[in-house]
């Protein structure tokens, strides 16, 4: 900690101002939007009407995609956790001098646009594509079975797209674990499995918490995967909000739905962090 009583404020000021102006205030703006009179339209304009019923209406009408978003996101997060853990663990403990290279490979896909990659999944999972044919041949899928336009494809897309956000924090916390602790566990009669469960896993908890949050939250708000890989029956809340804002122009409901989504997520995150017992995030 330094002397210079005001330096801290000066340094914080530009970023703080930026976030206040373009993150905090917009959020208020959104709150206001969510209380618009829904009788307005994009053409005629909207009035702030403090219409709290918007929330009820939005929930009533869109509880299904909302719920679906949460469950897809949860499923995707769980799968990401398993896959991400394996990868992060392998990089942290087994990759030796290839560690840095593998880490680079984890973020490299970011540079091939998110959309391009998701479209490429559409090609891979196509009804007449190789993957579906193989699965049909193996009788994992029925003869008219398919992957696209099913929850499987949407969740797979979410898993794929948010995996790096799981791997990186997991890696960061695994890498900090002192290898001798694991040896100490095996010295104290813990089989590799027990050692993992009793030492490695608990010690990587900060990474698990940060990773699950960084995966779950964006996944719950995503709509690209549902739009490209799903069908109308897999619509997520993001699709609804996006549609309401753009096509339908129903700002009031869109705002209300956004606020609801945000509230649910904040609540879940708080409960989660409390139970996971990690205060210091990321």
């Amino acid at each position, binding site marked *: 900690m330094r002397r210079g009583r005001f330096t801290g404020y000066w340094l914080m000021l530009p970023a703080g101002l930026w976030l206040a102006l373009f993150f905090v205030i917009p959020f208020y703006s959104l709150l206001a939007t969510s209380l*618009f009179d829904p009788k*307005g*339209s*994009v*053409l*005629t*304009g*909207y009035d702030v009407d403090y219409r709290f019923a918007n929330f009820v209406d939005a929930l009533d*009408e*869109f509880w*299904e*995609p909302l719920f679906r978003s949460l469950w897809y996101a949860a499923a995707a997060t769980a799968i990401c956790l398993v896959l991400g853990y394996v990868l992060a663990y392998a990089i942290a403990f087994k990759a030796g001098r290839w560690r840095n290279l593998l880490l680079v490979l984890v973020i490299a896909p970011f540079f091939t646009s998110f959309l391009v990659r998701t479209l490429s999944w559409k090609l891979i999972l*196509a*009804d*007449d594509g190789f993957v579906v044919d193989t699965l049909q041949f193996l009788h994992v899928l029925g003869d*008219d079975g*398919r992957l*696209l*336009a099913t929850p499987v494809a949407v969740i797979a897309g979410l898993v794929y797209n948010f995996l790096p956000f799981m791997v990186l924090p997991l890696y960061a916390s695994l890498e900090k674990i002192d290898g001798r602790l694991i040896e100490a566990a095996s010295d104290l009669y813990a089989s590799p499995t027990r050692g993992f469960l009793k030492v490695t896993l608990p010690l990587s908890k900060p990474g698990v918490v940060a990773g699950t949050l960084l995966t779950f939250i964006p996944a719950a708000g995503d709509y690209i995967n549902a739009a490209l890989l799903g*069908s*109308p*029956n897999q*619509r997520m809340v993001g*699709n*609804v909000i996006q*549609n*309401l*804002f*753009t*096509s*339908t*122009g*129903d*700002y009031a409901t869109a705002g209300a739905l956004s606020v609801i989504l945000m509230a649910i997520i904040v609540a879940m995150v708080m409960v989660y962090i409390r139970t996971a017992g990690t205060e210091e995030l990321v």
Partner: protein
Amino acid sequence: TPDRKQDPASCRTRDLSSSDKRLVVSNWPGYIDEDDGDYTSTLTEFEKKTGIKVSYTADVNDNLEFFAKVVNQLGSCQSSKRDMFVLTDWMAARMIQVGWIQPLDKAKVPNVHANLIDSLQHVGWDPDRTYSAPWQSGLTGIAYNKSKVKEVRSFEELLTRSDLRGRISLLTEMRDTMGLIMLTEGADPANFDQDDWDNAIDRLRKARNDGQVRAFTGNDYIQDLSAGNILACEAWSGDVAAAEDENLVFVSPEEGQMIWSDNMLVPNLASHQGNAEEWINYYYEPEVAAKLAAYVWYICPVKGAQEAMEKVDPSLVDNQLIFPSAESLKTMHSFMALEEFQIRAYEGDFADVIGG
């Protein structure tokens, strides 16, 4: 939020056409011919003839989506960065009504008034074609992939056949989709009441919930159809032919089909209105119109084009998709004109089904 109505008389800019030979056009995909080997497109010929450099983008996929793209600009008298876009009747009507569209200079588009087919000359929302000129008309029906599925004859089949389950798509254009469903349900899209509507929307919801519908699309259905992800779908008449895939077939459903026109519009603050008018006038020359129609396979709104087609491609002179006969016109339905409040209610119902 502010009111989005504008006055086209005040919300306009100086026309740069004479000094700045450029033109920015937004249109639907697959709606124009393209250079290919020896073939020179109408657009290239236009450029050659006039010296105007056309920047043509096929970024209209869906009327509402396009509306959303420009609402913030046009609604606050800002430039949409385009000199012309092509929208379907009802959307054109709406934009003209809120004052976002510039009137065309009659003197500069003589061909429109001379050659526009009679049936389109006096539409309710633009009685004198002051603001708009049809680009093409078209039909909404069914397309299917004949190599993968047996013939689909009716919309009913599309909505119910189990071998099509999860392999069909419908259009996000409310008037097309709801129109065809109403026909299936025995209602008249040109004149329906709330019950008819409710019936139809239930029908749609059911199809969706049953998993019959794989997607609601704009013009993008054609890729999925070609790729085999979709076996049959609601489709616009010209697209199938333009796709150049012999397995794809367009059918007029037994219940009837929807007819519509897409209209060229010059938005407020367009800086090349003169060039846009030159473009409109050019495409109303029968030879040009015939050449275009031969390529896109949509209904040609230009008188004399049928005759001109003799020279372009004689086999198409009697093509019902391009030059429908009087009796086939009778099987075609258009969608009732809606008041703004109806639009919002119906679009809202429809959006809830397709988007939620």
